[in-house]
């Protein structure tokens, strides 16, 4: 791992160590050719797609399409091979021990629902506790809230401290023998704070709790190693790793998946069906009812190729430097307040302009071709805690560079001017 010291100069740093060149990379994304003025700073909501992903999906439909798994004919065999090769790529992307630990779902949200229904429905009982953090996305909160409602378990919330840092000491104090599940995000989609997930997993496991990590924001930018991280479940969503919509991944440790009942049922996950009873296949098929998003899984495979070719340590270093640059430039704007993100902030910057509503800022920014997200970012409890209606959020992707930040800063200044 190489570390790049953040630079605050806006000049002459297009080419990063590791040959990372966002402007060059942009040419691989058709959206920027077709919207040449677009300053896209909303990759935390969803990333744009490189040509390799778009064309990979197209080629699949044009040359090799057929339903998977149940055909003896060659086209179906080819389709199945492509689908399972994509699963193997995804396994390698996470360095999971076995491809059978990779379950295809629609998105992070469905991955977490799957765990909450299947694992939670089996192993969480009245009086048990589910421990989350206070920066969770609704998708890593409401499914647990509903599980608690169904079972009589209790939802416990571990706080972030005033500096925006996950409070490890408070977390440790909240762990109890009743804690069955610790479900936290790897990177906050609101503040950009990177949570100490390895340490969290260690502490949780020491108390006998299972650990789910919401990797929605981490998968596109951090090297991941399920065997080293030793979490139980890891969820991410394809559309944020430069892949297509409709596909996401639940990684689950083999022993856990083996102990979980199916959730959705139907074709493709069946061992044997009689009216009286049904026997199910093993993981991952057991959890993939119906025709999967075959093209989505294959497209995600190409996205993984794209990210791996760049190298996630290069992406992280690039985005880390760019985050530092952005924080530096934004924090100089009078009346602009950045959300605290603790020791380590990556790829996401949330802020408010004094006396100006985020929605109004967003509209002005859009007029300057700067696409950012405004609102509660699906984290209402965090907004409530901070006493905010919402924030303006700028977030990074591999195609962003300092010029994008400069344009953002200019547009924010214009908004300030207008609402002065």
């Amino acid at each position, binding site marked *: 791992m190489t570390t790049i010291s953040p630079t605050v100069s806006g000049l002459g740093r297009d080419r990063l160590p590791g040959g990372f060149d966002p402007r060059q990379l942009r040419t691989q994304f058709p959206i920027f050719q077709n919207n040449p003025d677009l300053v896209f700073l909303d990759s935390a909501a969803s990333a744009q797609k490189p040509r390799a992903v778009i064309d990979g999906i197209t080629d699949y439909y044009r040359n090799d399409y057929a339903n998977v798994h149940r055909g003896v004919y060659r086209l179906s065999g080819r389709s199945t091979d492509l689908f399972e090769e994509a699963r193997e790529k995804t396994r390698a992307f996470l360095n999971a021990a076995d491809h059978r630990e990779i379950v295809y779902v629609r998105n992070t949200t469905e991955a977490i629902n799957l765990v909450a229904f299947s694992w939670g429905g089996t192993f969480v009982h009245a009086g048990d506790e589910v421990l989350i953090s206070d920066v969770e996305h609704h998708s890593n909160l409401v499914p647990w809230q509903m599980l608690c409602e169904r079972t009589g378990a209790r939802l416990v919330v571990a706080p972030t401290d005033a500096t925006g840092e996950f409070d490890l000491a408070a977390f440790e104090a909240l762990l109890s023998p009743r804690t069955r599940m610790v479900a936290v995000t790897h990177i906050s989609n609101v503040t950009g704070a990177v949570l100490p997930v390895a340490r969290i997993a260690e502490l949780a496991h020491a108390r006998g709790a299972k650990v789910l990590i919401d990797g929605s924001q981490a998968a596109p930018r951090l090297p991941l190693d399920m065997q080293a991280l030793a979490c139980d479940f890891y969820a991410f969503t394809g559309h944020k790793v430069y892949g297509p919509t409709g596909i996401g991944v639940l990684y689950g440790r083999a022993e856990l998946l083996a102990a979980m009942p199916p959730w959705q049922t139907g074709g493709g996950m069946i061992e044997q069906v009689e009216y009286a009873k049904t026997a199910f296949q093993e993981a991952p098929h057991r959890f993939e009812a119906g025709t999967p998003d075959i093209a989505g899984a294959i497209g995600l495979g190409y996205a993984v190729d794209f990210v791996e070719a760049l190298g996630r340590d290069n992406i992280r270093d690039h985005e880390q430097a760019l985050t530092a640059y952005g924080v530096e430039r934004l924090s100089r704007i009078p009346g602009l307040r950045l959300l605290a993100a603790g020791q380590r902030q990556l790829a996401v910057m949330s802020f408010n302009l004094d006396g*100006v*509503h*985020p*929605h*109004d800022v967003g*509209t*002005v920014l859009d*007029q300057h071709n700067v696409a950012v997200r*405004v*609102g*509660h970012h699906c984290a*209402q409890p965090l*907004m409530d805690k901070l006493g905010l*209606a*919402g924030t303006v959020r700028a977030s990074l992707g591999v195609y962003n560079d300092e010029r994008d930040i400069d344009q953002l800063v200019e547009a924010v200044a214009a908004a300030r001017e*207008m*609402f002065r």
Partner: protein
Amino acid sequence: MMDLRELYQEIILDHGRHPRNFRKIENPTHTARGHNPLCGDRVTVYLTLDGDVISDAAFEGRGCAISTAAASLMTEVLKGKTVAEGRELFAHFHARVTGGEESPLSEPLAEEMERLEPLTGVRAYPARVKCATLSWHAVEAALKGDGVPVKTE
């Protein structure tokens, strides 16, 4: 793309910064809350009806410049109108900001509509139309009196 100044006209910025009738009415005859789940904005409208006439109108809540100005201007034009006139104004206003079919407006109301004119710039910003109509929807709900908070979308 319109010039932003057509959306954020001086009068909008003024009402956004200094909303009129921004207060609670203690014993309103009608009240309702509105909520835009997309941005989390909330508004509560209060009305006092005297027979059929809206003798007082006020609002509270947080929102963007557009929604605050819209609520502010709305309370101004509603005061002194009958319920039917209020509804007529809303129908017309709604059509103007969404690009729907405009209903004809009787003479005295046409004048009031002019005061709402600055808000119709929102028509070029589809994502913001809800901001301009949220408080009106809340009034509608208050008059229906079913007490269910309204929301846009």
